[in-house]
């Protein structure tokens, strides 16, 4: 057997690098419990939000206010289309990270690309939602118009709030998220290049 003193020396130094703290296992168990609670709570909140939206849609459907049938239909369509888009875009990407590094980084690349695509679809969907609401409002102007004339201040306030919500959420949120995802994409591409040894110095 060939002796490799340099490697043996490195291994000796390496083996003394770090030991996990004594209470490591206890801390990990606590962390697992916390994560499991968070997971259950997260799922529960998602289901509650989903059901809440549908209940709200059903509620407004049976009230003869200006929101009426169109609004409830819109909410239902938005909820299902948003959920459907998310499931479709992220399909086949939930594999656990137990695979090789190469496969993991390739999957990571696919995930980031999918999220960027999802972000683009979300922006289009939001714009579509605004147009849908505008068309619906125009179609029901006979009913809504009376309400607007009766309560003009409330409608102006509603319009301002909607605009303020749309602008930061749609514009700044999307721009910030896109920039972040593009940076992540560049990083993943860099790692993939390193793996292909394209740019290793």
């Amino acid at each position, binding site marked *: 057997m060939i002796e490799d003193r340099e490697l043996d020396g490195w291994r000796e130094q390496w083996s003394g*690098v*770090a030991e*996990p703290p004594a209470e490591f*296992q206890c801390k990990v168990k606590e962390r697992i419990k916390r994560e499991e609670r968070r997971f259950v709570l997260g799922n529960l909140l998602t289901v509650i939000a989903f059901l809440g939206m549908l209940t709200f849609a059903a509620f407004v459907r049976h009230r003869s206010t200006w929101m009426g049938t169109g609004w409830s239909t819109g909410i239902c369509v938005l909820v299902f289309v948003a959920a459907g888009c998310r499931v479709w875009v992220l399909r086949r990407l939930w594999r656990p990270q137990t*695979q*090789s590094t190469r*496969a*993991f980084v390739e999957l990571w690349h696919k995930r980031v690309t999918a999220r960027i695509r999802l972000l683009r679809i979300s922006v289009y969907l939001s714009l579509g939602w605004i147009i849908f609401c505008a068309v619906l409002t125009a179609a029901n102007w006979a009913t809504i118009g009376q309400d607007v004339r009766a309560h003009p201040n409330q409608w102006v306030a509603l319009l301002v709030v909607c605009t303020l919500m749309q602008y930061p959420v749609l514009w700044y949120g999307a721009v910030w998220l896109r920039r972040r995802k593009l940076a992540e994409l560049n990083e993943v591409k860099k790692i993939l290049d390193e793996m292909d040894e394209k740019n*290793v110095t």
Partner: protein
Amino acid sequence: MSEHRQALETQFAHILSEYGAAIARLAFSYEAVASVREELVQEIALAIWQALAHFRGDCSERTFVYRIAHNRGLSHVWRRRPPHQPLEEIEESDQPVDPRPQPEEQAARTDQRVRLMSAIQSLPLTHRQMIVLMLEGLSHAEIAEVTGITENNVAVRLTRARKALKDALGARP
């Protein structure tokens, strides 16, 4: 508690006691700051727990642990940019304590270790991974399983990674 869950917990406890030190060392190569490193070690352990239920034994337990640990390390590097903090900047309390008595020898060992770690941290991610797996004593076949490249490729890359490590050590005072 179900039998399945109990079996998983036993296996997990075994993995932590068997590979806890290796995970801590590996985390050292991805993170220099002690408090963040401890967090990373916990994250790796958590990822192993989450993946354990899907572990069907299609690779060795060792390969399974190193795969998850490295993949977590990679994600950590991305989330925590800028990635490299030279170990010279780490406070004294971050250094592992060597219980042996001779202070000069101990100081020299610590110094060598710090140089080695700093050099490893300065390597590109793929070289770093190769070096860490080699130092952990994995065979070429095991490294190939962890990284997802062929054994021949592992040999070539290990040679390059070793050269890069030597250069990095040479560049350090």
